């Protein structure tokens, strides 16, 4: 077992304290840090300086793809590949295509949102180095766990620990591999 440091973790219980801590960590110049919470805490992403996700663009792209596919599918099957005259109705028209166009737009938007979400989060990933820490898993129960990663340029064992303690974290500890 090597003793490569992975991160410094600290616990919080109070959301207000957490928000202040998050913005202070960001202001101290740390980039590679994360906060693990049992539920989304309003305003925390802003305090951490999380950049707005590009997910809406992925969803929109998926929607457009679905719409285009629907139009092509209906036009190609009905008006090009196998022309079937039913009661003299037009082989292709937008009027009768709207329901299927709509449904496929929604379907592909949903699927791309779903896949895009996990892609952007880097999930599924069934292992996190932080799970070596016993207290880390309480983040999905009742604790806010702040973690400053060792990969951060400003990371230094002493200074990072000190900052965390100053910001009111409980149980400040080092996680090692």
């Amino acid at each position: 077992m090597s003793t490569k440091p992975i991160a410094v973790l600290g616990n919080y219980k109070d959301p207000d304290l957490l928000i202040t801590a998050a913005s202070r960590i960001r202001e101290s110049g740390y980039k590679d840090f994360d906060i693990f919470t049992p539920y989304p805490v309003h305003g925390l992403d802003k305090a951490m300086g999380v950049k707005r996700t590009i997910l809406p663009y992925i969803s929109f792209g998926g929607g457009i793809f679905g719409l285009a596919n629907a139009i092509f599918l209906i036009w190609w099957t009905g008006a090009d590949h196998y022309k079937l005259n039913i009661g003299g109705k037009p082989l292709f028209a937008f009027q009768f295509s709207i329901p299927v166009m709509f449904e496929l737009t929604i379907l592909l938007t949903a699927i791309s949102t779903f896949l895009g979400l996990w892609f952007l989060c880097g999930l599924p990933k069934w292992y996190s180095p932080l799970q070596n820490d016993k207290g880390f898993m309480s983040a999905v129960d009742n604790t806010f766990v702040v973690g400053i990663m060792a990969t951060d340029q400003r990371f230094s064992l002493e200074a990072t620990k000190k900052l965390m303690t100053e910001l009111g974290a409980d149980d400040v500890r080092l996680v090692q591999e």
Partner: protein
Amino acid sequence: MNVNDTVNEIKTHQNGHTTANSLMPSMHEEVFREPLILGNPSLHDITEKIASIPTLTPNLKFLLTLFVFASMAGWGLFCMGYTIMTGIGVWGLNNPVGWGWDITNFVFWIGIGHAGTLISAILFLFRQKWRTAINRSAEAMTLFAVLCALIFPLLHTGRPWVAFYWLTPYPNQMQMWVNFRSPLVWDVFAVSTYGTVSLLFWYIGLVPDLATMRNYVKSKLAAKLYTTFSLGWTGSMRHWHTYEVAYMILAGISTPLVLSVHTVVSMDFATSVLPGWHTTIFPPYFVAGAIFSGFAMVMTLLIIAREVVDLKSFITLKHLDNMNKIILATGMMVGYAYAMEFFIAWYSGNPYENSVFINRATGDYAWAYWTMVSCNVISPQIYWFKKMRRNIPVMFVMSIFVNIGMWFERFTIISTSLHHDYLPASWGYYSPTWVEISIFTGTIGIFFTLFLIFAKYVPMIAIAEVKSVLPGSQPKHHDNH
């Protein structure tokens, strides 16, 4: 500043700490609104309460209920097999009544699903925090209802093994495609999209809770399963940020989707030329009816669930009261639609329309029509009284009434319109055979069996969402208000 002082006092009393600024709107909410969760639990209490359900050995009550419903499901599946082996001649369908219990049940089950999406998507967009206690189970209900619904049109095709290229644009040897001008094909797209999107939405909501379960359960197999399906969720705020956007997008697209689904279902009827079906009121009328019946089914399920699994502190009378208000409102919309159909039939001056509606209320199926009216329009009126909206036995009986009434609404629309059309020489009557009845009770069995298994092994309350609306769980001073 008397009022503010009082507010401060109550606030101090409730949360155990003083807050200087009492003018924030959220505080008024916290002070004057009924709590969403009773008993002031801590975050860990919530985890403990919900996550412990799957770890407990199932009790006799649970197993017995499961046995009864699974037996119904088994018998239903047998009758489905019998229908497939023999042909739909074993049903009571005839000429002129070519759509009977099968399509009635299809519309019934699809309608049930709509409340789930309404609760999870539309109430989310309206920021209705009370939905957090009930959305998970309502969404599960949607999935199971859609599953039950799909059985019927598939069997109705008579030869379900070739239905794949009848219903979907599947490249087959004959190089024939589906007819996109047909509302029945629209329906295939609408229902399958609805099922898929509901599943994705439900699963996204589940992931953080499965992660909580992953760390809670003791059994190795269970831990493995929860771990796999929780995808390695850690609760990272960077993930939550994207997650919340994804949730919002899905809620945003599910809202028009759910409205479109029953609209398209209603077009199966409305685009025909049959008097009694050929009306423009159908889409909104069907959507209102779907939400009405869906809420009734959520009610039935939740009243049972909160008793059996002891969730009374999460699913409170406030939740039930709110749902009863929606039942009252949508019941009135449905009542309005019934009245308006009659008015338009008379106002159109069309003798065929006229006769269909007079026949509905006075003809061979009048019993079905009046069952529908009394269950759907008359009985929900007791919900004008708060006492009734908060009375468990009353609302349980009411929810069953509405379920029955809404089933009869579909039956009335389908059968009364078909059995008397233009030519008196081709009038007929339809009643179901034991096979059709068994298949319907079979789907009830399937629905409840799946729901019971869900309630036992999947977190039935959205743990993370409930935590996020707990008083004191969110920072007090942030600019997102």
